[in-house]
């Protein structure tokens, strides 16, 4: 028993002597290790936020591409709107008909086709439709421009050609028959038609229309 205890004590002593040996550590460069640890602790090195900037860049690129596409889709349809009516109005028959008070037959222009919806501005714009509930969105797309805001959006996006003729203007021009008064509003005429009409006709009081007052200021005095 005593020898066992002695052996145990001897083993403990040997254990302590062995533990007193110091492992070599000169090959471990502490300064370089701390520098590398600082580098590795950066968020970019960890890879945690590496995707943030590329994702933001991709999102902005997609938004820019969408806006460019919207502009490209709208631009070609705005050009030809004045071409066909301009050709029709420049014909002498059309001018005579305009002086005589009869409205010349204007071939249907691309204005009659559904125009692209403007991107911004007003309840009829794409932004407003995207924000509106789905069931209201379809109803709004079928409803004609009833409110002032919708009419404003149409004029801003499609030009003055989109301005509907008031019922009273047809009567003042003398071209409206009684049955025309009950007929649906006439299609908007082109700007050139209206301008030519203003030039050739005397300054007759037309129906109160804000646009007429604007155009009258552009009259260069070519009156008969």
């Amino acid at each position, binding site marked *: 028993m005593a020898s066992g205890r002695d052996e145990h004590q001897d083993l403990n002593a*040997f254990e302590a002597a062995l533990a007193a040996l110091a492992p070599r*550590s000169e090959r471990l460069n502490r300064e370089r290790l701390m520098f590398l640890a600082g580098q590795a602790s950066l968020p970019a090195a960890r890879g945690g936020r590496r995707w943030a900037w590329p994702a933001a860049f991709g999102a902005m690129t997609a938004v820019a591409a969408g806006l460019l596409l919207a502009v490209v889709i709208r631009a070609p349809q705005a050009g030809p709107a004045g071409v066909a009516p301009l050709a029709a109005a420049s014909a002498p028959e059309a001018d005579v008909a305009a002086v005589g008070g009869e409205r010349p037959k204007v071939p249907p222009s691309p204005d009659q086709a559904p125009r692209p919806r403007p991107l911004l501005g007003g309840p009829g714009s794409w932004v407003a439709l995207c924000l509106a509930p789905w069931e209201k969105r379809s109803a709004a797309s079928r409803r004609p421009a009833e409110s002032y805001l919708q009419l404003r959006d149409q004029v801003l996006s499609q030009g003055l050609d989109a301005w509907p003729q008031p019922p009273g203007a047809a009567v003042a021009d003398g071209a409206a028959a009684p049955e025309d008064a009950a007929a649906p509003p006439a299609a908007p005429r082109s700007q050139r038609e209206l301008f030519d009409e203003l030039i050739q006709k005397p300054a007759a009081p037309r129906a109160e229309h804000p646009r007429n007052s604007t155009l009258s200021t552009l009259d260069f005095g070519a009156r008969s």
Partner: protein
Amino acid sequence: MGVITAEILTRLLDEHGPALLLYARQWCDAPEDVVQEAVLQLVRQRMLPENLTAWMYRVVRNGALNASRAAQRRARREGEAAGRDEAWFAASADDRLDAAAATAALAGLPEAQREVIVARLWGGLSFEDIARLNGSSVSSVHRWYHQGLAALRERLGATWPADETNTKT
């Protein structure tokens, strides 16, 4: 630096750096690379490990074993013998055991006994931590430790200073 602060890292290197080197030296010839990689892995962690010391020893063990296998493959390919004649301990006049002899004796132990002795004596790990580290039972770890100590004492018997307990046997 994130969760792992510079203070934690400095304290870890001061208290366990040499022991981690010794632990990795059992398997590979470049223990400093293994320990460095383990520290970098620790820095990349999002949360501080629950038992930091045991975690470090596990990572160092895995890294050292991988390095050892790679070195053996390279040695077989190049026909070289893996040399491991570098001393593991710093010699000191106050030591009661010869550093070179202790290195040779430790290197001659079976791997399981050597690993347990190094982790226990210089790493300060408990027997439970060591058992989790090498995937064995606590009783096995206990047995290997005492067997390894006895074998070391027998091998270092010539250099173990004679004292009153030794003369009695």
